[in-house]
């Protein structure tokens, strides 16, 4: 049985941990608001971009000669996966969920005998993947210095990807990130960005006849690299909102758990104090009796 002093120390240490988790929760909550706002503000851009590209690809007649970024390199051998995680821990299952999703995808690729290449964005993803997939990771990127997700960073990642694609280092590129649904729920996503998957091609805008200036393929050639950066940026925004949301709920749980622990320890402390007092009394009484 722990002594009274030990119990006291434990209680105070749990209490100070609770203070920390509480503070972290507050910080995450205020950051979350900002991240959520910018995720929402960033949506019109990526939506519009998507729309324009859909319109463009619909009106392209010559599919054979359209840019490689749209139709792919015609092969399906080398897969590049961009795993986007956070740079900091203590955010619940946020990173683990992405990694889990990514790993099951990696397994599929390995089973079908294709070549896998990985780029990690965010240091936590690298830490978790380096044990199993060390040889597959061709690059690790982290933006520890930038406080908020910004387009400049996303563009850097986008340029790296485009560069590698032009050097024919991979055929298909998929990004992994967490989509922010609400504070409690974040959905890990896999999204193929090269070649562009036109899942909603049968869209609404087919009736429009656009005029293009310059030609369609020239616009597309200019637009598609931008789209890669935009998609990365979107993923970064969603990710940062998810990270804060996840951290907030994780810290909320931690605070509650710490509270429960303090209660339990306090009861234990009081009981053992009472026991000590009783013991002393018994000693005194039996000492008096023996006289």
């Amino acid at each position, binding site marked *: 049985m722990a002594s009274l002093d030990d119990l006291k120390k434990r209680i105070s240490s749990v209490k100070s941990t609770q203070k920390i988790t509480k503070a972290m929760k507050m910080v995450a909550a205020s950051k979350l608001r900002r991240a959520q706002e910018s995720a929402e503000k960033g949506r019109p851009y990526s939506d519009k*971009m998507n729309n*324009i590209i859909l319109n463009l690809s619909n009106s392209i007649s010559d599919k054979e000669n359209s840019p490689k970024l749209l139709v792919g390199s015609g092969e399906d051998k080398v897969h590049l996966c961009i795993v986007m995680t956070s740079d900091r821990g203590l955010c619940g299952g946020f990173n683990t969920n992405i990694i889990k999703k990514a790993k099951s995808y990696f397994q599929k690729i390995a089973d079908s005998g294709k070549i896998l290449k990985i780029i990690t964005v965010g240091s936590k993803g690298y830490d978790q993947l380096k044990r199993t997939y060390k040889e597959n990771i061709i690059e690790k990127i982290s933006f520890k210095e930038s406080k908020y997700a910004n*387009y400049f960073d996303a563009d850097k990642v986008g340029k790296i990807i485009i560069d590698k694609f032009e050097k024919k280092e991979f055929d298909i590129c998929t990004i992994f990130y967490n989509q922010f649904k609400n504070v409690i729920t974040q959905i890990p996503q896999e999204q193929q960005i090269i070649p562009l998957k036109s899942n909603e091609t049968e869209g609404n805008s087919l009736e429009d006849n656009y005029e*293009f200036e*310059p030609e369609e393929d020239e616009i597309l050639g200019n*637009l598609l690299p931008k789209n890669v950066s935009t998609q990365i940026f979107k993923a970064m925004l969603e990710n940062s909102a998810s990270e804060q949301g996840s951290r907030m709920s994780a810290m909320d749980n931690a605070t509650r758990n710490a509270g429960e622990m303090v209660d339990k320890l306090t009861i234990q402390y009081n009981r053992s104090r009472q026991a000590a007092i009783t013991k002393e009394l018994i000693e005194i009484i039996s000492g008096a009796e023996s006289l």
Partner: protein
Amino acid sequence: MSNGFKLEIVNPERSFLSKEEVLEVMVPAYEGNMGILKDHISIISFLKPGLVKVFNSGSSEETYYVEDGIIEFKNNCLSILTSNIFDIKKIDKNFVKDALANAEKDTQSSDISDQKKYLLDQKIEVLKSLTLN
């Protein structure tokens, strides 16, 4: 009927400007400046560095400097997507100088494509005109 149309300028981080009623917008399209009025045909084009001029209904005008972007006009709604846009009234003179110096340095290097060179020349021209006033 009004003879204005809707204008939206968005950059990746936020919606930069949104106006319900503008009379005309001049954009520096890749193949030359283009004025867009109401009931323009649906068009998609991309931008070279230059000035976007917005003419409001009250005969006031605003000017913005853009470095790149895409425009889409459809159903009397003009969307401008750009990653770099600045209000020239608020633009920092030092920023212009830096950008100009960078662009000039870039044109000196020999391994750039004709297209890039063209864009850079445009950029230099516009930036120079900005430093003058």
